[in-house]
């Protein structure tokens, strides 16, 4: 599908996808808001579970996407700045959804336990991952789009991703040390009946489609920027040679 440059980054395909996401999202909200019965223990707060899980899923997918694209960039045979653009776009989406995840987690925590933050492993790991992502974007921000930036952020992307399991494990162990047994896990006692399973499944599908839609637009935008720069090179060369003092 080629992009018609004059009208932006939308194509017929991505518009259909976008429509699907909107419809799916609307259905999801209806299901979560009305069709789902209120859970006995956690009441309305349980409605957030599908969204919470799906956001977490999306954040990890985005993180994974950045890592894979970084690896493809680093392999000489498949090296191409397109992979760098994909890695960067995925990271931006990841930051967006990790922030959402933490915000939702904080709301949920406030609804169920009256506190905004709990030092439980899941939330803490998520916050650490967000910090890793932010650092990645900060590094990308230092340089303009270039081979140098692509190289450095690719390495950082791969390293950060490889460390997710270690961060995860160590925070988990740390959490198990001071978790008083009477406190329930964040989603420990929500009943997984059919309607909940359905909404979980639906939210995963909708959010995955949302990720693809966001990626399509963001990567195309980056590609347009790169094409603009490349075309600019010839004029830049002409301007440069015209700079001659004598």
């Amino acid at each position, binding site marked *: 599908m080629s992009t018609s440059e004059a009208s932006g980054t939308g194509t017929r395909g991505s518009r259909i996808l976008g429509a699907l996401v909107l419809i799916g999202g609307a259905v999801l909200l209806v299901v979560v808001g009305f069709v789902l019965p209120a859970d006995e223990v956690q009441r309305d707060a349980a409605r957030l579970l599908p969204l919470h899980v799906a956001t977490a899923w999306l954040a990890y997918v985005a993180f994974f996407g950045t890592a894979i694209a970084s690896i493809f960039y680093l392999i000489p045979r498949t090296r191409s700045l397109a992979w760098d653009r994909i890695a960067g776009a995925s990271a931006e989406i990841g930051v967006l959804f990790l922030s959402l995840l933490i915000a939702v987690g904080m709301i949920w925590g406030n609804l169920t336990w009256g506190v905004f933050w709990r030092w439980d492993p899941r939330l803490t790991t998520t916050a650490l991952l967000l910090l890793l992502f932010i650092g990645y974007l900060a590094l990308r921000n230092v340089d*303009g789009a270039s081979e140098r930036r692509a190289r450095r952020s690719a390495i950082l992307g791969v390293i950060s991703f490889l460390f997710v399991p270690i961060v995860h494990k160590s925070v988990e162990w740390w959490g198990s040390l001071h978790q008083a047994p009477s406190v329930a896990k964040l989603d420990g006692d929500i009943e997984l009946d059919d309607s909940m399973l359905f909404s979980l499944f639906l939210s995963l599908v909708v959010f995955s489609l949302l990720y693809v839609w966001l990626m399509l637009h963001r990567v195309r935008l980056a590609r347009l920027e790169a094409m603009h720069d490349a075309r600019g*090179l010839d004029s830049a060369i002409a301007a*440069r*040679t015209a*700079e*001659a*003092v*004598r």
Partner: protein
Amino acid sequence: MQPVIHLRDAVALHGRFPALAGVTADVHDGEIVLVRGPNGAGKTSLLRVCAGLLPVVRGEASVLGFDLTKDAVAVRAQVGLLGHANGLYSDLTVRDNVAFWAACVGASANEVVAVLDELGLSGRLADTVVDKLSTGQRRRTALASLLVRRPRLWLLDEPHAGLDAVGRDLVDAALRRAAEAGATVLFASHELDRAEPLAHRVLELDGGVVR
């Protein structure tokens, strides 16, 4: 015979800015070539391209037989670059610095002594910490670090900068000796009255192109 440096319409970028906008030049074995031009003409970039530090995105570029558009890294060990900065460790002495760069290429301790002698850095000066040296002395130390590697191609960016008359004489003598021993020298300089007598040939660089 194949030229030591061969460039045709070479374009090199600094981010998005074309520092070299299509340079065509050949430098042959044993030549001392001066690169002349106004500030911002691309002299430093030209030297860095030949050193394999700045990638060439368009055109042909080869140095000592290495194709710079494919494998610029391989050429680095064969050439010596004296950049704007001196590339020295300020907390170490002159001798430490030169000895370190010598050890990187496996040169012996005798060569270190010889090089220090050649550039007037022996005696008490050799054991002075670089931080305490004058600009000219640091420049000579930097050149010594290059000299000790005995590269086939010398790339010098303002070699006379900050040197007094004695220093300049030492540097010029070292350059001539190297060329006579078979090395090729490409250097950029603003001090034309000093540089022109030294060079066999002059390249005029302006606006990223050779005029």
